[in-house]
């Protein structure tokens, strides 16, 4: 059995006196689509910021292939991150946004970079948007462009924050299919923060579920199995869209 790609050990996160999640421990295998679930305000997106090294945890550790991510030190990224809104740089065109990491971290000539940009945009269905500014794109297009930018340096690991939030059902399904394709064809590992149940059941192979009250992980495993077998009312109510009182 191979070592897990991603290891989180006893991670406690928060700021000042506020603890958002405490002593979280989990592992992510290579080639997995791993979902971080939970209701609004439970700290999913906050946890993601610690996983990618944007914040320093109160205690515990995060390692990717044995290396602790730290975004305070500039350097070629170990993975790609797509933020909730896409977070494209507003003063660059979509194409320039995707070319930026390639220009910075590779020695490829301009024509090769142009080719990769065009191919990545085609991959996410935005081939006609290369010369457009981010402000001219819809929310879904920004997310897609954000994925293309996160994939520019061909990382093995991608973090996606709420990829399907705010998208129409057709765009959400297309995005799920893109994630599945990239996972199955290219073997990419995905860590997805979401609370979209349709998306969770379609793409999630394993997951953890966070809870706001206990500030801890209350469930882990295959989301479909958790939906059908969990006896924890909090988990049952989340997966089956019922109020907690009805679930207990």
């Amino acid at each position, binding site marked *: 059995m191979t070592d897990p790609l991603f290891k989180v050990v006893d991670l406690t996160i928060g700021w000042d006196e506020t603890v958002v999640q405490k002593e979280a421990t989990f592992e992510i295998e290579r080639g997995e689509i791993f979902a971080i679930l939970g209701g609004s305000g439970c700290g999913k997106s906050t946890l993601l910021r610690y996983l990618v090294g944007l914040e320093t945890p109160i205690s515990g550790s995060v390692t990717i292939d044995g290396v602790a991510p730290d975004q305070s030190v500039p350097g070629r990224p170990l993975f790609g991150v797509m933020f909730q809104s896409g977070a494209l740089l*507003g*003063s660059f065109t979509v194409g320039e946004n995707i070319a930026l990491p390639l220009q910075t971290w*590779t*020695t*490829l*000539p301009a*024509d*090769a970079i*142009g*080719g*990769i940009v*065009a*191919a*990545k945009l*085609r*991959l996410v269905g935005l*081939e006609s948007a290369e*010369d457009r*500014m*981010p*402000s*001219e794109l819809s929310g879904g297009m920004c997310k897609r462009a954000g994925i293309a930018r996160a*994939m520019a*340096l*061909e990382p093995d690991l991608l973090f996606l924050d709420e990829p399907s939030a705010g998208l129409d059902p057709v765009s959400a399904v297309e995005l799920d299919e893109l994630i599945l*394709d*990239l996972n*199955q*064809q*290219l073997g990419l590992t995905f860590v997805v923060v979401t609370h979209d149940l349709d998306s969770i059941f379609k793409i999630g192979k394993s997951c953890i579920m966070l809870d706001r009250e206990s500030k801890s992980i209350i469930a882990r495993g295959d989301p479909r199995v958790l939906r059908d077998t969990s006896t924890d009312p909090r988990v049952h109510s989340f997966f089956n869209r019922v109020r907690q009182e009805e679930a207990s």
Partner: protein
Amino acid sequence: MLPAFAIEHVQASTDRGEIRLRGILRFAEAAPLWTELRRLETKASRGQTLDFEMSAVQRIDGGAMALLACLRAELHRRGVKSEFMAADEQVQRIIHLYGGDHAVRRLKRRRPLGTLDQLGRATVSILHELRLVLAFLGQIVVAAAGVLRSPRSANLRELPATMERSGADAVPVIIVINFLVGVAMAFQSAAQLKQFGANILVADLIGISICRELGPLMTAIVVCGRSGAAFAAELGFMQVNEEIDALRTMGFGPMRYLVLPRVAALIIVVPLLSLLADVAGVLGGLAVGVTTLDLTARAYLNQTMRVVSLWDVSSGIVKSVVFAFAVALIACQQGLATSGGAQGVGRRTTSTVVITMFTLILIDAVLTIFFRVAGL
């Protein structure tokens, strides 16, 4: 270290060639892969065929596939037929993912604009902006008339805070800047006036120029840089964040709710700041007069009071009211016209300062000429 891939070119017939790829094609070796592919693709010309033979490719990642797909597209555009051949099932799926088995579409290139086109567009854009500012002015007048008819609809809650931010908080910088302007002008003129033994005329020069021109103008420039830019950024952010739309849906017109309090705040505080600027400027001249021209403070102040008429001060105040209105009008108009996220906010904030500076100088010149022609 040897690359994990190998490439060779095989010419099967005069018009048909193949690029044979072997091994593992990965993004980490994209640069040598691209150099080699570029070298080999020149061997085919229009009307010929150059296929990629992929049977010996063990693995390929997205970055390497992106390069191959890009090269195939380029060959097609050059009139060279090119396809990926004999790939195994896994590689074929990646070829499909990157559209390597799809027809190549023609690229539409944007034609760069000529100088005349750019000049024309810029002129139309300036005229359009001017029209928008005038329309905005009309909307302010209508909103103000509405508030006069129904005073309870005015948003007075924002007025004191805006006055404090634009007025009280600006006092130190206004005093320092105008004091230094007075000092600099007095120094410049002292050297000349001393030669004629007319030292006392420094008081005349400083008093009149500060009260009529420089006090109000410098105050308006500072207010433009502080409050004008702040108004534009604030309203611009609200606009891109859909807060203005939210206000509209709740029944608040942005004119009455956001613009009028800002216009009113500046119209109230800028004349007061101008008076302060006049005093600071005269004190700057006084400091130079006493220290370098052997004038007494009493003599300097008496001369200033004798020479500076009430109209000199009030004409500066009239100007400062017009300046205040112009700063608020342009800043709010630019802020509410913002679109396009953070970049849009930055663009509108910059244009607020630039347009307002230009407008202030223009208004100052027009009013000065008007007062002179009218014999005031």
